[in-house]
C-alpha cells in the first residue's frame, strides 16, 4: 500500500517528487510509483555534474519485471547521488520519500516548481 505523499514537497505527473532546501532540490520517486513498479532491483543513477531538464529522462529504474525511465521533476545540475541505491535499490520500495531519495540537484529555475502539484493534488491524481 502506498503511503500518503508528504506535504513538504511537490510532485510531477510522472510520479517523481522534489523537495527544495535552499538552492538544493532533492528528488525521488513516489511510493505510488514504487508500488506500481514492484520489487526494484536496479537504479541507473545520473552522473554528478549531469544537467537535468525538467520532465526529461535522467536515469532508469528496473524492477524484476520491467525497465522504466526516471523523469526529472525540475531542471538543474546533479550535485550528489544516493550511492546507497547501488547496493540497496530496494530502498526505493521501503522508503521512497526518505532514504530512497535519488539525487540532489542545484535548482536551475525555481519557477519550474509552479508546474508541479502539491501533495493534495498528487494524492487526488493517484487515488482510485
Amino acid at each position, binding site marked *: 500500500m502506498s503511503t500518503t505523499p508528504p506535504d513538504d514537497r511537490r510532485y510531477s505527473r510522472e510520479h517523481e517528487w522534489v523537495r527544495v532546501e535552499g538552492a538544493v532540490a532533492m528528488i525521488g520517486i513516489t511510493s505510488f510509483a514504487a508500488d506500481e513498479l*514492484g*520489487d526494484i*532491483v*536496479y537504479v*541507473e543513477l545520473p552522473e554528478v555534474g549531469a544537467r537535468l531538464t525538467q520532465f526529461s529522462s535522467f536515469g*532508469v529504474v*528496473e*524492477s*524484476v*519485471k520491467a*525497465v522504466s525511465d526516471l523523469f526529472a521533476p525540475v531542471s538543474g545540475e546533479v550535485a550528489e547521488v544516493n550511492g546507497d541505491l*547501488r547496493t540497496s535499490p530496494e530502498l526505493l520500495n521501503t522508503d521512497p520519500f526518505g532514504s530512497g531519495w535519488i539525487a540532489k540537484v542545484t535548482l536551475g529555475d525555481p519557477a519550474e516548481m509552479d508546474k508541479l502539484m502539491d501533495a493534495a493534488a498528487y494524492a487526488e491524481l493517484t487515488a482510485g
Partner: protein
Amino acid sequence: MTEAPALLRHTPLHASHLALQARMVPYAGYEMPVQYTSIIDEHRTVRSAVGLFDLSHMGEIHLSGPEALAFVRYAVVSDPGLLEPGQAQYSMLCAPDGGIIDDVIVYRVEDGYLIVCNAANHDAVLAQLQSLGGRGDFDVQVSDRSDETALIAPQGPKAAELLARLTDLDLSTLGNYRSIQGRVAGTECLVARTGYTGEDGFELFCAARRAQRLWDALISTGEDLGLRPCGLGSRDTLRLEAGMPLYGNELDRSVNPYEANLGRVVKLEKGEFVGRGALAAVQQTGPQRKLVGLVMRDEAIARHGYPVLVDGTEAGSVTSGTLSPTLGERIAMAYLPAARAAVGAAVEVLVRERPHPAEQVKLPFYRRPKPDAA
C-alpha cells in the same frame, strides 16, 4: 501503458485474486494476477515452501476416438506412442516449415490424450488440431475443454506435503510427468506431477465450477507450510532460472526446436508428422543459431530484445532476462549463431546503447537440490 483491451476474460478464481489485492494485468486475453505482494517474495516461497498458481487461462484440448494416438503422433513432434496411461511428455506442435506453433504437455489419460497449451496459443493450437483432424485421415474427436477446466498448481518443496493432507491418493508413487485421477479436498481432479518452476509440484485440473472450493482448501490448508498465492511474475522468473523456454520469448513461429535446445523432444524416427521434413533437414545440418544462457558480469540487466555482441559486432539478441532472486545474479537467455555458442565465451549485451560484459553459461541456471536420501 496501452489502452485496455475491450473484454478481458476472467478465470473462475478472479474474485479471489481481487480479494487478495493482486495486481491484475492483461495476459493472453485474460485478466491475470502478476503478483499478490512481491515477485521476489513469491519466487522465494516456491523455492523454499509452496506457492499456489492459478493457471486456468491455459488451454486444455482433449483428443479421443479409435485413432487418437495415430493423430496425436502426427500432430506433435514427440512420440506420445511411448506414453503408458498416466504418463505425460513435453512436446511441441510445429508448422510444416519446422517453426514452433506452441510447446505443450501431452497427457495420456483414461479416455484419450489431453494437450495442455499456452493460453496465448490456444486458438492456433485448436485451429491446427481441428484442421488436421478435419481432413478425415484420422478417426479422432478434438474437443476444446479449456473453458470448463480450471488449473491450479501448488509448486515447491512442500507441495507434496500440502497435497497429502487433502487427498487419499498415494503421491509417493506419482513420479515426475505422471498423472492420476482422484479427489483433492473432495474435488475430482487430474493430479499431475508437472510444473514450470524447476521445483517439485503439481498441476490440478478440475471442473471450473469446483475451482473456488479447491483453491480455498489449498490456501487454508497450506497456511502453516508458508503457502502464498503466486502470480505470473514469479512464474516467469522461476522458469527462467530453471532454463525453461517461454513461448513468445524463446519460442515462436520463426524458431525450430533444435535452435531452442529441444532437439531431444523431436522423434524423427517415429514416422511422418507435421514438420518432419523441415526438422530432419535441420537435424542433418545442425541449427544455424542456438539458445544460450548468459550471466552478466556487471550490474546491468539484459532484457528481451536487447542486442548481443560477439567480438563487438551484433550477433544475436536476448530473449529473456532478469535479476535471479535465487542466485542474486543477472541471468538471461539469448540466441547466438551456433558457431559462436560456447559455454565460457565472453559476449556483450547492449543495454541502453552501452555494451555490458556477459559470459555464456550452461543451462539451467538453477537446478533444485536433490531430496535427502533419508
